[in-house]
């Protein structure tokens, strides 16, 4: 019978590191997907997966079981990702000053109003999505990924990121607003 997360966590806490293998193998793919959406980069995502599991292992004594193990793990992954993105942003700012609210979407994206006949939805539009996501500020991107892809509610996002629900909500709203501004012209073109 498949071992539950709770059983594996209990065994790890009892001093059996091998029991952690079940958790790593079970959740690696989903943590990778989260990390990739956050970073937009496969190598960074793989590094973040490892960092997430190492950090979770070290902090497993603090896991109180109120949320599921996967939710707790995603919180750690999101924070690792947020730290990485912020650090990367700091480096970029030293080289090229950019807005505190995120990158200049217009500068980094292909033109958002190509002629309709040139825009195949599953092709060219798809190419706009990743840069649009990467163009959000670190907090906006994290909040959006947790809300949109991981299905966390606003309150959970706030707890995961250590901010109040209002700030989490505001980050999601701003993220959606920016995505709409960037993608809507292309989507409208595709429909016309």
């Amino acid at each position, binding site marked *: 019978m498949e071992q539950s997360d709770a059983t594996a966590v209990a065994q*790890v*806490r009892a*001093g*059996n*590191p091998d029991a*952690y*293998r079940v958790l*790593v*193998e*079970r*959740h*690696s*793919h989903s943590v*990778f*997907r989260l990390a*990739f*959406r956050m970073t937009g980069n*496969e190598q960074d*995502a793989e590094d973040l*997966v*490892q*960092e997430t*599991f*190492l*950090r979770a*292992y*070290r*902090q*497993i*004594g603090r896991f109180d079981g109120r949320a599921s193990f996967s939710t707790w793990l995603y919180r750690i992954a999101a924070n*690792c990702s947020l*730290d*990485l993105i*912020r*650090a990367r942003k*700091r*480096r970029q700012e030293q080289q090229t000053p950019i807005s505190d609210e995120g990158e200049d979407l217009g500068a980094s994206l292909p033109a958002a109003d190509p002629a309709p006949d040139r825009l195949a939805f*599953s092709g060219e*539009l*798809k190419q706009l*999505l*990743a840069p649009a*996501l990467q163009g959000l500020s670190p907090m906006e991107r994290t909040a959006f990924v947790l*809300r*949109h892809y991981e299905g966390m*509610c*606003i309150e959970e996002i706030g707890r995961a990121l250590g901010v109040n629900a209002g700030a989490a*909500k505001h980050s*999601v*709203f701003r993220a*959606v*607003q920016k*995505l*709409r501004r960037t*993608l*809507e012209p292309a*989507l409208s073109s595709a*429909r016309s």
Partner: protein
Amino acid sequence: MKHLNEDDLVLHYYGERQDPEAQRHLEACEECRAHLRSLTRVLDAMNRLEPPAPSEDYGNRVWQRIAPQLEPAPARWWAGWFAPRRLVAAAAMAALLVAAFLAGRVSQRRQIAGLSAPVRERILLVAVGDHLERSQMILAELVNNESKGPVDISGEQQRAEDLVGENRLYRQAALKAGDRAVSSVLDELERVLLEIAHSPSKLDSAEFDEIRRRIESEGILFKIRVVSTNLREREMPPASGKAGRSL
């Protein structure tokens, strides 16, 4: 009822607003429905952003990578860092790493290949020594910071990030050379640096104390000094008439 604003519609899209009145308004108001359709198109489009699928055995690969770094007592993962046998082995491990470089197993720095062996040796010793020295400086700054209240470690974080990349190269070189002991130790050093790099840049006093305690309580600075001294001695050119010291 007045029209729903964009924030209301976002909450509605995600099912976080179960307001019967808003629902009734949506049913009755074409303008709001059009806004919702437009929002839905954008957010649905984001679902097409698919990350690459890792291979079936990805979980196993992650496990193989992190397993050597797990200690039985998770809350004290760093406890093994400074066990006496590890301390004694540290200088030897650094030497083994350098030996791996000198054995020609690391080829990235091609410009070094054309140099004489003693010069190459000194360059590499300086590089490793410099890496350790910079690591030591960051740790010392953190340990000696006696601020009360929130501490901004963004400067140390950035330097730690730079060192992580360098450390990773040394670790990979050791791994390629088949020296699991060296790669394992560098893995641990990498985690210390990563811990600093990935901490929030503003720490409250409890978080900062924890990082400082980890660095301080087990004598990491002492260990780095020992290894650095060892490397510096090896950097010195051999006295004339004497055979060069082997690594």
